[in-house]
């Protein structure tokens, strides 16, 4: 049953669910009746109320990011206009045009660097200052992290880079700029968004508010909450016990603990993204895909093309590609061109991959453990590129048994990564790893009661079925929407009943805050 006292703890996940419910009823009604071009005003008010309630005064950091984006966006857009002015001049020679353009380009680079530094400063102070000062023996750090700072900072940087590249126009309305950085469903867990992709719907109100969208949104929210409340939070209780080193458990209990954490993280993160997607769909907005059945991957690089897709895409487009195509890296590749297409690129590929993955690790958190987590995947991807270079040519690599084996190997490697991700320190990760070789010291069903286990298995089978259908390109929400309204409504009622009966909350439980929300 619902644990009423827990529900009103300010800042807990369940409290945020309460706010979400309020938005979906009151907010949607207002949004529905306001005309298209003014709909953004409703969303910005809702976003600021939501951010203010959850983050208090730290929500002002959103205003700071919006101000930087607004002014520098316009400044960078003006700079691009100057290139066209130089091109149009007929009174100067081609060489002079090139010189003026090179000079202008340097100036634009400085402007962009200044804007990005201003956006990164709060992130550095709130998130990384503690890590840097600890290197010098100090303990100076901020306890609180502004809501969504790791997400909206990268989205804002992407916006400015796109303007500088001429791939996006600058926003002329400061309120719309504020909405771009503060849109409430994205603040907790992302995904990262591109201004040019979301501006027509989010900022300019070009949305269709249909009953089908509403039902589809509710179905996504319901399924996402089932993943979070029935699976992830239930697994979390088992994970906390199984991987607690003080309990002294070992053998299969610890192995299951690590695997359970992997599924916990998947169900929680992808579930909350489904909620974000569902809420946005109700408001007529389409959210970019952030998960694509990651456990069907047959390689680590494929896993990261299916897991937290928007994060990988951000690092790929704004860092990996420009770094690899920089003069030093291309120069290195050209120096080695006699070694053939693969080996000439491989050293540059490894340097860029390791650097980008180190940064990806640090994005998750300001510690050496997260840095190692990123480097772990960087090293795996370099080794995988080498392995694929030789194995990709063989007939064996195209066979089903080979793909099954590679799928299992990938799953094991991902679980080792999750162990690094979960452990607070490297020594903890090592101790958990070592404990797998020790006796279990506890019976499985003393850590999870049989009925709880049955609920868990049934819910996981539901998630697996939906993932298999999605992998076969069958959209289950579309299938349900096409059914008569009695069936559609019944599905929603069943979801709500399932959450009330089987969700992990109530006086006996502490509501679990989202793991990725902490980033």
């Amino acid at each position: 049953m619902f644990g009423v006292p827990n529900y009103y703890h300010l800042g807990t996940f369940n409290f945020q669910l309460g706010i979400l419910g309020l938005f979906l009823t009151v907010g949607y009604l207002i949004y529905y009746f306001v005309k298209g071009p003014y709909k953004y005003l409703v969303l910005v008010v809702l976003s600021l109320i939501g951010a203010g309630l959850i983050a208090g005064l730290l929500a002002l950091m959103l205003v700071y990011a919006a101000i930087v984006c607004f002014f520098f966006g316009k400044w960078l857009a003006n700079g691009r206009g100057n290139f066209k002015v130089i091109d149009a001049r007929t009174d100067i020679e081609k060489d002079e045009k090139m010189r003026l353009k090179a000079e202008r380009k340097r100036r634009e680079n400085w402007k962009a660097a200044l804007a990005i530094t201003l956006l990164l400063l709060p992130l550095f102070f709130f998130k990384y200052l503690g890590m840097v000062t600890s290197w010098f023996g100090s303990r100076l750090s901020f306890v609180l992290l502004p809501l969504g700072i790791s997400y909206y900072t990268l989205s804002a940087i992407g916006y400015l880079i796109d303007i500088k590249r001429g791939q996006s126009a600058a926003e002329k309305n400061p309120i719309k700029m504020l909405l771009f950085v503060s849109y409430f469903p994205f603040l907790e867990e992302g995904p990262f968004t591109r201004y040019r992709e979301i501006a027509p719907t989010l900022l300019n109100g070009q949305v269709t508010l249909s009953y089908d969208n509403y039902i589809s949104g509710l179905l996504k929210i319901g399924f996402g909450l089932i993943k979070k409340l029935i699976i992830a939070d239930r697994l979390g209780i088992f994970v906390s016990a199984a991987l607690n080193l003080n309990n002294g458990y070992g053998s299969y209990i610890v192995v299951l603990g690590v695997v359970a954490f992997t599924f916990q993280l998947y169900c929680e993160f992808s579930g909350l993204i489904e909620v974000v997607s569902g809420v946005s769909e109700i408001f007529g907005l389409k959210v970019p895909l952030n998960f694509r059945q990651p456990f069907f991957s047959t390689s680590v690089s494929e896993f990261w093309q299916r897991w937290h897709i928007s994060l990988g895409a951000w690092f790929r487009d704004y860092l990996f590609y420009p770094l690899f195509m920089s003069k030093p890296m291309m120069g290195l590749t050209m120096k080695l061109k006699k070694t053939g297409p693969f080996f000439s690129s491989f050293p540059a590929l490894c340097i860029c991959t390791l650097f980008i993955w180190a940064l990806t690790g640090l994005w998750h958190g300001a510690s050496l453990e997260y840095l190692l987590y990123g480097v772990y995947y960087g090293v795996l991807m370099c080794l995988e590129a080498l392995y694929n270079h030789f194995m990709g040519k063989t007939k064996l690599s195209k066979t089903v048994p080979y793909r099954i084996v590679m799928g299992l190997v990938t799953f094991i490697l991902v679980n080792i990564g999750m162990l690094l991700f979960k452990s607070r320190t490297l020594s903890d990760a090592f101790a958990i790893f070592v404990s797998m070789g020790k006796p279990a010291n506890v019976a499985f069903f003393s850590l999870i009661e049989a009925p709880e286990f049955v609920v868990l298995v049934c819910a996981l089978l539901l998630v697996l079925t939906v993932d298999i259908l999605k992998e076969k390109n069958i959209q289950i929400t579309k299938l349900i929407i096409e059914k008569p309204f009695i069936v559609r409504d019944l599905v929603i009622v069943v979801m709500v009943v399932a959450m009330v009966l089987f969700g992990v909350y109530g006086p006996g439980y502490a509501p679990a805050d989202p793991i990725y929300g902490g980033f």
Partner: protein
Amino acid sequence: MNEKEQLIEVLNAVKPGIDYEKEQHLVTDHILTSFDIVMLVAQINEAFSIELTPLDLEPENFDNVEALLTLIKSKEA
């Protein structure tokens, strides 16, 4: 050897075992990874004496042989 044949040779050198004449969605169907794409960029720059930039790395430019040829021709012009 014409440009198309030369391009297919480059593609096969970077990632063999794919029917490049037939495949129309090399990027959107996740056949080419970001690793393959950057290797391909280095080889295309060398083979066709052009300079691709990060701005050119849009999925629609790398999705099939025709799109790649259009990109190369636009850089040669």
